[in-house]
């Protein structure tokens, strides 16, 4: 029996020691950087499109992280790395909540004061859903705005049939900086059948070019809005990620007319993981392609370009509620009735 105890105890010790093998507890900056680099190396999808030499990033920045001591210095170094990649989906958050990434620096140069727009252009019967606004405009025009963070919605719960959209619908994707892939389900109200609306491609291995084939993703149409209904989609630089995807789907699958600026892009889905010491990394884990099998990472172009100056949005718009892009949309729908 003593022999069996001698056998069992080392097993227990080995199993207990395995804990160190499971949890990466090294909180040093160089270990945090190494984990970041390795996860990106194996799982990030846009190295080729972004023209990034990932090995040189390692050799350039490992010495930096060997010497930095503070969270703020690390955030600064990560900011520098992410600026090389130029993907607004990428971000790093420190364990005390500080952020490194392109999104806040590059996407949100301005934001629209939608409350002022609503009052300036006589919006009525405004209904607010989770991440979605629905309103009536004069002359048989209805308005739907998708807000950031939209998840799957039951489109039959939207009281859209109570609205008069006999002259058309405006779908406002401006400042829609993203949401969930399930938010694409919103497009089902404009579709009459089940159909492939875009393709995704994921990593299939750890190599930079190890990708799956194109995986078709479908949406089942709810046939709520008839296909003859005139649709105007408003987009701007802040239309990003899910907003960008919805713009692409509506452009290819409906008679929607896009007005505004080229969208900010963000053609992929993201996920986040913890780095050592409680830091976290968000990265793009799949690529999205439109029906023409072209990447939508670099944005969707409008049919009618209208780009007010940033100063206009920051000054006159805030003073008066004036919105030249919605004026064009209303004007087009009024002339096509």
């Amino acid at each position: 029996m003593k022999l069996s105890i001698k056998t069992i105890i080392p097993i227990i010790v080995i199993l207990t020691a395995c804990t160190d093998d499971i949890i990466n507890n090294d909180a040093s900056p160089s270990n945090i950087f190494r984990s970041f680099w390795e996860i990106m190396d194996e799982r990030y999808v846009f190295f080729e499109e972004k023209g990034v030499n990932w090995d040189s990033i390692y050799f350039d920045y490992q010495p930096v992280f060997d010497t930095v001591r503070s969270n703020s210095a690390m955030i600064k170094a990560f900011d520098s790395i992410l600026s090389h990649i130029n993907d607004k989906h990428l971000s790093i958050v420190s364990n005390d909540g500080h952020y490194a990434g392109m999104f806040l620096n590059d996407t949100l140069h301005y934001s629209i004061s939608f409350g002022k727009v609503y009052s300036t252009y006589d919006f009525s019967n405004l209904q607010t859903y989770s991440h979605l606004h629905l309103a009536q405009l004069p002359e048989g025009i209805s308005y739907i705005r998708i807000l950031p963070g939209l998840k799957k919605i039951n489109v039959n719960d939207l009281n859209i049939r109570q609205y008069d959209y006999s002259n058309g619908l405006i779908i406002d994707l401006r400042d829609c900086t993203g949401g969930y892939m399930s938010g694409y389900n919103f497009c089902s109200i404009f579709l009459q059948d089940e159909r492939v609306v875009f393709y995704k491609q994921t990593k299939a291995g750890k190599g930079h070019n190890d990708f799956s084939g194109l995986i078709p993703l479908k949406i089942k149409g709810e046939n709520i809005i008839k296909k003859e209904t005139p649709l105007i989609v408003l987009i701007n630089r802040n239309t990003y990620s899910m907003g960008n995807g919805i713009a692409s789907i509506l452009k290819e699958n409906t008679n929607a007319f896009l007005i505004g600026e080229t969208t900010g892009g963000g053609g992929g889905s993201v996920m986040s993981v913890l780095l050592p010491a409680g830091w976290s990394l968000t990265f793009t884990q799949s690529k999205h392609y439109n029906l023409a099998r072209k990447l939508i990472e670099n944005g969707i172009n409008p049919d009618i370009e209208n780009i007010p100056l940033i100063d206009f949005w920051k000054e006159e718009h805030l003073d008066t509620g004036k919105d030249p892009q919605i004026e064009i949309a209303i004007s087009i729908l009024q002339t096509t009735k």
Partner: protein
Amino acid sequence: MKITLFLILIYLGGSTLLVAQEEETKSRGTLHNFRFGIGPIAYKNYYSIPNGLAGGSMSFTYQMEKEHKTKKRDFLLRANFDYSYLENSKVLTTSEPLFRRFKIRLGPGLLWPLNLKNNQLHLQAGGNISFYGEYIYPTESGGKHIYHPIPYGNWSINCNALIVARYQAGRITIEESLKVAIFTAGFFPEFQYTPTSIDNSYYWDFLKINTISTIPNYRMIENKIAIYFPLANNQTAISWRISYNHYNFENSQKYIEHNLGVGIRF
């Protein structure tokens, strides 16, 4: 560490009793076991928790053992449910768990006696087939700290080898059981696993067997030592269970759980 030392002491104490007692074993008949346990866990998976997290777990187990006298074998039926939380003490913005984990094991088994010519020590060997499933998902707190955390899970049907050693020491029974998965078949997330989609059809993919593996590529080891002693008209148990799992397919997972439990057998 203190818990580990405490558990080792219990283990050594139990093992000492093992060699100190002598009494003939009685027929066991049908036994029902209920066990509740708690303990620490260390867990990681390549996909959603690549740097690992520590936490705590609690488990509830029911096991029925039925002795078949003529065929001289034991039939086992076991259901086990575990709940774990995973946290990161280094995250300064939250002290709440970042992920929760549910694990279920369910299945029958058979044990045959091995003749040791020893009235006190009884050895049984056999196997069981168990359904194993686990699901790890981010908490609300995890969703606040980690921008877009992703759930992860797998399920499998395992054929396990099972060895049970039982030593009758007076009114105390000491039982050591070791279970090792030999063969597994089930759904394990592949490298490109992306559980976010706009249609629900992919859920069916998760129900299909996509991986078949054997030891050593799929390692699932469970070791439990229990000391049973009479209390009122039942047998009460204190036990220590260690569960270890490591697989390394396209995605990998590794965890170790220590679980100190109390139970009742009647």
